[in-house]
């Protein structure tokens, strides 16, 4: 089971929602439970949010700093375009709608893509629009 920090700000609420969505998926759990990274996501025009993955315990920090393994910057419109299949990651990168610092950390990037962006795409195509039936069975400890 993973644990995720109780969010207090809007971006953390969204990220918490995304990272909880596949909490019962063994493939997802295997990606998250043995992984220690700090990823900063800057969803423009909002503020930077650091997501700290610590072997299955996920916490948030509202700041940007140099200790990140990856820094991803995109607008909320681009995020929705990626989620709903109107744009793919490569196109977003080429058109500079998605900017990634430390792009050379390929394994980290690939894993974060599988943890985050693939999840967002799965959420977008899920026909269920009832929050409670989607999340009531998810095994997530909120700390």
């Amino acid at each position: 089971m993973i644990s995720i920090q109780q969010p207090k700000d809007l971006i953390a609420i969204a990220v918490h929602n995304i990272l909880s969505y596949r909490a019962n998926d063994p493939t997802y759990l295997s990606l998250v439970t043995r992984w220690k990274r700090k990823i900063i996501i800057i969803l423009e025009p909002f503020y930077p949010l650091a997501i700290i993955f610590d072997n299955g315990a996920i916490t948030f920090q509202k700041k940007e700093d140099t200790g990140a393994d990856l820094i991803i910057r995109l607008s909320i419109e681009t995020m929705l375009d990626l989620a709903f299949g109107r744009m793919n990651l490569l196109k977003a990168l080429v058109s500079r709608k998605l900017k990634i610092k430390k792009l050379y950390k390929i394994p980290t990037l690939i894993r974060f893509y599988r943890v985050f962006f693939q999840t967002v795409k799965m959420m977008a195509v899920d026909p269920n629009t009832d929050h409670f039936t989607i999340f009531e069975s998810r095994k997530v400890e909120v700390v």
Partner: protein
Amino acid sequence: MEELKEKLSTIFGKDRVTSNQVDLYPYSYDMTECSPGMPDFVVIPENNQQLVQLVSLANECKIPLIPYISGNNVGGLTIPHHGGIIIDFGKKMNRILHVNEDMMYALLEPGVTFGQLKKYLDNNHSNLRYSYPFAPPYASVVGNAILSGMNNLSCKIGSMGDSINGLEVITGMGEIARIGSCFYGKEHSDPGSWWCRYPMPDLLGLFVNWQGMTGLVTKCAVQLWPNPRIQKCYMVIMFGLTDIVDVLQEVGRSEIVDDISAVNTEVIKMTCEIPEPVKIPGEPDFAAILPITAKTEKMMQAKEEILHQVVDEMREKGIQILLIDFLEFAKIFNLRVRCYHDLPAVILSLVEYSGLTWFGSYAPMHEMKLLIQKVYSIFNEHGIPPFIYMKSMKSGHYAIFRPIIRYKKFKEEKKVHMLLEEIAETCINLGCIPYKTPAWMTEKMRKVINPGWLQLFERIKKCMDPNNIFNPGRWNT
């Protein structure tokens, strides 16, 4: 009292009358901080003849009558402060009597709920829709209409009081009167005759917004609207405390959206179960949802083009505004926020605390920026997370301004009342007119209302209800 109970039992039947304390207790209070009051009886009517007899008995005994449907009004309107008889319309007088597809209206008994009407229309008349408020499915359609509620078509059609075609009422003299185009027919009206409020002298105004002080409403015809097949919903996110007012005005005037409902960021967090939310630097100030409907794809594209144009014009003025698809946003952000779209719905942020109260008002659009600034400060000074809900009404002719307070019932009444008093004072001074007013609020309003209005109001009340049996105490009568 025993004699009165006997008489009531003769009218309604023994099973439909109670004076047991345990039965009366739930009717003695509501979710607000208004002080409780016990009724003497609760009766459950099934037809007009029973109510005519009740009015006659009440006049004879000079005993108050308080109409009650589901008790979800946020204003203490059904709390009996002088004892009396609660008339619970919700249990038996809750039928959808007629839906007229040609002239687009529904004829309802008072106990019909929003959930009931929506289900009925979806199953039987899917080409028609009603307009739904931020209220639970078990709240009353007629209660909302005769108290001029504001719903999710209000940017298009205005107040729900404007969408009433006709009423059937029982007056203080025990007469059954049909008001509106249904007034034809000596004994009975044709179900197809409830199509319009005008152009006869408008007697609807003697019952709408009177909080049950002038008679009992037993039927209400409400307008329905075409239900276009193409439906989308946009969301604007605003950085700038008062810039949301520009959206209420400019998008309202563009006449392309069905509704504009705005809440501050703290409310979005409350919806996601953060109980005592604080706005953090960098977060936006307000968000609003803009449902848009259209008959054809071309019409939708045209409306979207206008919307983008209006938003671009605001950006050129330096307003920081995001425009995104709300339903897509909800899927990724948190599906709980869909409650503001999938109406009628239980809005968690309104029901998760045991107490709820508000200063709900019709507000002049030109004062909205000042209202937001002042009320936001008042909330912060009292250490309570701001909860502000606003709407643009009838293409921006006026607005709804509603600061809301959630609190722990039976523990925080005093604190909440102080906050609400300060908000009321500020808002009334800026021209806001509260609806669903508890008596302490109307007392404040009376100090600034012109004497001519007050005299006319008192005369009409006295004429309609000489023995002051209908919900006495409301508006300090």
